[in-house]
């Protein structure tokens, strides 16, 4: 239930960047969303339709680029996507891991009209 606050944040960032370019309308937002970022894109979309009303971002399309978690084993070098049962390296059972992808959560770019 934290997607409302997140959606408000997305709107604030987008409008601020658009206004800096003297835009009159925001048509598209490109959001990068890692699997481990605990955000549900359907909920963001739901709130977006409500809170963007009355702003220059009204009706803008949200594009989500979902990034699967990717771990790199520091022992054997294996790069893998953890399954739901265990995080450990499937090759050597190593626990020295680096999270190389999956924690992203940013607004990458916006499409504006001016």
């Amino acid at each position, binding site marked *: 239930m934290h997607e409302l*606050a*997140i959606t408000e944040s997305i709107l604030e960032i987008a409008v601020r960047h658009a206004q800096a370019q003297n835009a009159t309308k925001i048509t598209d937002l490109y*959001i990068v969303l890692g699997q481990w970022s*605990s955000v549900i894109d359907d909920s963001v979309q739901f709130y977006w339709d409500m809170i963007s009303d009355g702003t220059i971002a009204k009706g803008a399309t949200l594009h989500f680029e979902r990034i699967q978690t990717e771990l790199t084993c520091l022992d054997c070098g294996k790069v893998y996507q953890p399954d739901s049962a265990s995080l*450990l390296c499937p090759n050597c059972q190593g626990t020295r891991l680096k999270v190389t992808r999956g924690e992203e959560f940013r607004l990458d*770019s916006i499409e504006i*009209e*001016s």
Partner: protein
Amino acid sequence: MSERIPVVEKILSANDRLADENRARIEAAGVFSINVMASPGAGKTSLIERTVCALSPKYRIGMINGDILTSLDAERAAAAGAVAIQINTGGDCHLDAVMLQPALDQIGLENLDLLIVENVGNLICPAEFRLGTHKNVIVASIPEGDDKPHKYPAMYRGADVLILNKIDLLPYVTFRMDFFSQGVAALNPGLTQFDLSCRTGEGLDAWYGWLEARLSGEKVPDA
């Protein structure tokens, strides 16, 4: 004319900025602060009760409790000797930096040594929302099972200290300590961990010692 412009901004950057403001206020008052997070029932309030009872003779302790409803937890902390303030989130699943601000206004930071924030019971998102406290403390417990680090990686990634509570139940519950520890090590290598039981009191002294070292302003390695 239509054009695509780069933004590349962290979506939670507004919360992060407010968290920095909260941190500055807490630091200016000379207070050490922790954010206690866990699933419902892991023992956050019991740990806080125990901690307040043990340390309140020596230190002035404030407690801010985030809960969806009721002030039961704040009342328990107040009964143990803390100045307690309740934030009812009204359904929100975590505390964030904005919610903390009015509580910081009310609690009288200048009269405190230690501030304990008890987050909403939830293993999914609280760690994503920085509050401005110094350390994130996550409470796990034996009956929750040994797979929690594997299933809730974000919480374990964001922790500075791990408390493993209810170790008195180890003889009665299947809990593979090695599997649990492997998950923790994978997500947060070198994480400071205290195994204890708030019911029996076993292991609590080491946790108090960790806190006291920070309260006395000793130069201790960051953990």
